[in-house]
Every structure is written in C-alpha cells, then in structure tokens.
C-alpha cells in the first residue's frame, strides 16, 4: 500500500514539476547567453546565476511540498483519508514523495548550474585563454588531491544526514499542516501554520547548537576530518526530532476536522 | 412517489398493479414475470418491496416461483376468475351505490355504460 500511495502521489505531482524544471534550464541558458563579462564584474557571472537558480529551486521545492501536503486537507482529502491505508502509510508516503522531489529538484539545480557554467564558458572561451595558466594550476592541484574521489566520498557521507533532514523537515511541515486543520484553529491558517513551523524549527535548531557544539566536519586544505561521534549524535538528534514530530502529526490527526 | 399513494404500503400497491396485469390477461398463466430487479427499476422502488409483493402473490396462489428460473403466473384459471370477479364487483358496487343514490334507473345506467364503452373503444 505504501508503494501504491507513493506512486499515485508522484503521478499527481509530476506534471507540475516538469515545466518548472524546463524553466530552470531555460533560465540557465538565457542567463549564459545574456551575461556579458565586459559589462559586469566577472564575479557576477557566477554569483547571480548560482543564487538565482538556487532560489528558483528552493521555491519549486517549497511549492511542490505545500501542494503535496495540501491535498490531504482540501476536497481531495475526502479521498486520501478514506483510502484503506493507515495514517502512518499515508504520511510516510508524503514524506518519501517530498524527498524524491526535493532530490530531483536539487539535481535539476545542479544540472542547470552546470549548463550555465558550461555554456557561458563555451561562449566566452577567450576568458579562459586569458586565465589559462591559473586554471591549469588549479586543475592540476585538484587532480593531485584526488578531488573527484573526495567529492564522491563527501556526497556519500552526507547522504544519511540529507535523508534524516528531509524526514525532520517534512515531519515539521506535516505538524504545521495538521495543527492548522484541527478544531483548535479556525482562522488565519496560513499565518498560524507558518508561525508553528518557524517556532518549532527555531527551538529545535537552537537546542541542537547548544547541545552539539562542535562542527563534526572540518576541512583543512584538502583534508576532510570527520568527528564521527558528533556526526552520529547529530544524525540521531534529527532522527528523534523527526520521529517526535511524526508522532505528533499522527496524534493531531486523530483530532482533526475536515474542511470543505 | 409519482405513481404510488402515500397512505398505503407500496408493496400492496405493487401487488395490485401485478394482479391487474394478470386479470387483464396481459400476463397469462405460465407467463414469466419480470425479475425483482427489473420490477424495482420499472417502478423505481426498493427491491425488498417488490420481493414482498411477489411473496404475497405467491402466498395467495397467483404466482409461483421456480428457484432457478424465476417467477411465473400460476395456471389457476379459477383463482384468476374469482379475483377478476372480486375487482369488477368492487368497482360496480361503487358505481351502483352512487347512481342509486342519484335515483338513476337500471336501464339508464346500462345505457350509460354502453355509451361509455363505445367511447373508450373508439379512443384505442
């Protein structure tokens, strides 16, 4: 049942995302073509698209997630909550779907950024000719330090962190939505939902930085040092927070009312 | 509730409708009756109501059920004749009661009936 729920959640939302990803890539292409290094500072060429695309990706993610969860509480909720699935399966499916879309959005971001950098570089090869020696030095250094392998390792190591953060983040969104749709809240749902999210997030993050004070990853030149104990604690912290919030979501839904 | 009155149970009214079909020979002995479902759809009523009407008709011997096939009009000419007689009698009683009260003579009454029949047949 869980797989079926995820499948249908994906089917319901993918048609909204594809045009947005296309838009992202278009934005990257247009940006690459229109950004003129003679007029702007060189730094602009990389900061603006980097942040521009990042913000666009973040907006896409947030919008997708909100639409996904909202379907539980609009008229479509009359279908979702009546399906022969437990609450746990229903909400877990939303979390996993959100995780999948967050990841695909992040990948589109990376792809768009690469397209931008690649296209821009291709169009302005003269720049690279100018800085040829410096670029060659950097590349040699990276190769010497096995940068690619290092990068792959970093990705793998941050994977559990990434997943637990999605779990935590999504559980928090579910709590906000669930709370706003109970009999406790009658008006200003968007505002209250946002406040609940910000408040709980603030408390949990603060607690984290007070309890777990050291960074667990430090980078010294090309050497990456990982404090595994801190890493583990941080992971467990967010896992526990996520589970707590997920349980809270389940509890709140016992008290909920449907809205038309 | 277009064709049914509100005061009498519907199953009785359905019984009445089916009896009329039989008396008029639109449904002949050994003819198969429509299924419960078909009747329920035709009259737009609950199937249980139809079931009850048919059970009652079975009980009085007008209809019999063959488990696997369905329900049939009984080959009971005597019963049908007596039912026909009863219903005709009821209507005639009512008519004569009114006309006698109006001091209409028997021959005037019969004349009126003849004319009414002629009128009706010309409409068909």
């Amino acid at each position: 049942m869980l797989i079926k729920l995820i499948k249908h959640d994906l089917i319901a939302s993918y048609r909204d995302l594809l045009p947005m990803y296309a838009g992202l890539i278009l934005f990257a292409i247009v940006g690459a073509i229109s950004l003129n290094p003679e007029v702007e500072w060189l730094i602009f060429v990389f900061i603006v698209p980097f942040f521009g695309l990042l913000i666009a990706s973040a907006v896409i993610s947030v919008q997708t997630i909100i639409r996904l969860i909202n379907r539980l509480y609009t008229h479509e909720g009359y279908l979702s909550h009546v399906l022969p699935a437990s609450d746990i399966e229903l909400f877990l499916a939303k979390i996993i779907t959100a995780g999948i879309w967050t990841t695909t959005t992040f990948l589109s971001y990376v792809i768009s950024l690469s397209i931008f950098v690649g296209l821009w570089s291709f169009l302005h090869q003269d720049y690279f000719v100018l800085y040829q020696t410096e670029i060659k030095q950097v590349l040699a250094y990276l190769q010497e330090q096995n940068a690619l392998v290092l990068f792959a390792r970093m990705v793998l190591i941050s994977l559990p962190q990434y997943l637990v953060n999605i779990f935590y983040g999504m559980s928090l969104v579910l709590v906000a939505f669930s709370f706003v749709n109970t009999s406790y809240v009658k008006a200003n749902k968007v505002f209250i939902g946002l406040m609940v999210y910000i408040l709980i997030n603030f408390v949990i993050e603060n607690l984290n930085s007070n309890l777990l004070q050291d960074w667990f990853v430090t980078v010294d030149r090309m050497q990456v040092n990982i404090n595994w104990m801190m890493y583990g604690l941080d992971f467990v912290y967010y896992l526990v927070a996520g589970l707590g919030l997920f349980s809270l979501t389940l509890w709140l839904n016992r008290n909920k009312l449907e809205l038309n | 509730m277009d064709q049914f009155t509100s005061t009498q149970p519907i199953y009785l009214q359905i019984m009445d409708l089916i009896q009329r079909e039989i008396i008029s020979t639109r449904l002949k002995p050994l003819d198969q009756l429509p299924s419960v479902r078909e009747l329920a759809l035709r009259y737009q009523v609950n199937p249980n109501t139809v079931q009850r009407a048919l059970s009652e008709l079975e009980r009085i011997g007008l209809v019999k059920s063959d488990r696997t096939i369905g329900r049939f009009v009984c080959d009971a000419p005597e019963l049908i004749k007596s039912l026909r007689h009863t219903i005709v009698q009821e209507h005639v009683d009512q008519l004569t009661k009114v006309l006698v009260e109006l001091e209409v003579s028997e021959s005037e009454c019969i004349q009126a009936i003849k004319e009414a029949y002629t009128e009706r047949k010309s409409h068909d």
Partner: protein
Amino acid sequence: MIEVKNVSKRYKNTNALDNVSFTLHAGQIVGLLGPNGSGKTTLIKILNGLLRDFDGEIKIDGKDIGVETKAMISYLPDVNFFGEWMDGDHARDLFKDMYPDFDEQRLFDLFNKLKLDPKQKLKTMSKGMKERFHLAFVMARKAHIYILDEPIGGVDPAARELILNTILDNYNPDSLVILSTHIISEIEQIFDSVLFLKEGQLVLNDQVEELRTKHQKSIDELFKEVFKC
C-alpha cells in the same frame, strides 16, 4: 453489519450527535434523513473514519473503524474528491490499485450509461458531469457498504432518475446502502427503513412500510411533521 451504540460528538456549545444508537443490516437501503445541521454529516464522517474523536462505540462487521472498515465502505461525499487534473483513465488506475473490490467492467458500463468520456479531464466537465463521474466510481466497487451523502441534491429530474436507477441496478442482498438526503419526496420509495436525525438525536428508526401504514402519510409528510419548528 453496522452497530452504533450511544455515540455522541460533543463540542463546547453543542452536541453534533447525542447518544445515537442503531443497527443496520446487509440487503437494506436506508435513508438517513434530517435538516442541515442535524448531525447526518457528522455521523457519516465518523463511519468513514474522517472524524476519530467521539464518545460511544461503533462496530462495522464486528470491527472497529480503521483500515479494514475503510476497505469495506464506498463513500460518495457531497464534494468532489478527485483532483481537477484527473480523467477517467487516471482515476480508474487509482481505484484499481487501491481497492480490490473495484470492478473495471462495471465502471465501463456505468460510464456508458451515464454518458461519460474516460479521456475527459474533470476540470473541463460541468458540475453535473463531475457528480456523475464520482457516482460511477463509487458504484463501480463491489463494496459491502455504500454511503451516499446527498447524491441527488441540486440535480435535475432526469439526472435524479439516472442516479436512482444506478443505485437500484447496483443493489445486491449482501450490501448495505446508506443514503443521506433532505429531499425525500422524490426517493422515499427506494428506502427499506429510515433514520430521522434531529439536532443530533435519533428521533425515528423504523421500516418505511410500517410507518406509512401506521401514520397514513408519506415519509415526506411525516418528516415535515416531525421537523416543523
């Protein structure tokens, strides 16, 4: 099949439901009647598991309300529950996946009878078409219990007849149909029994034919009498 014992749903100022008890069996078509605000919708939501917080006990086929009872019930709410982007094919895939009792052939027949196009998206349909669309899907399941909330409200006589025919055509002695409505006169002849809800209380629970004989009125007339202020 459905046992409701002393069920109440209390809010601060009012009782949406007040000590309601009744039992319903398979093979019946039951009318759940009452004016707006009488507790019909609350009761229906509780039976469907949309409202979990209530006093009293409910057993459906001996089970508490949960995943198993949800699988037994085919529910037609008074709102459209499919997304606007969906068409018949997508909705069919969804129902096929989620409900083992879904009958694709029956859906096909119903779509034909109700004159619906499986390729048409909901957002391009008229209000009446959307309602027929949802009815088709709910009736295409071979469920133990059908709960229809105001299926004929605000619908023209031709459509109403179509809907009643669909319900009657689908009837089987192993299923229970609960139909909630405030328009009684046009459909009272399809009920076996009726439940009258007034301000959260069950004021009447009886077989329809008995009521007609006893009170010498139609159910509609009886209803108006019971609910006149």
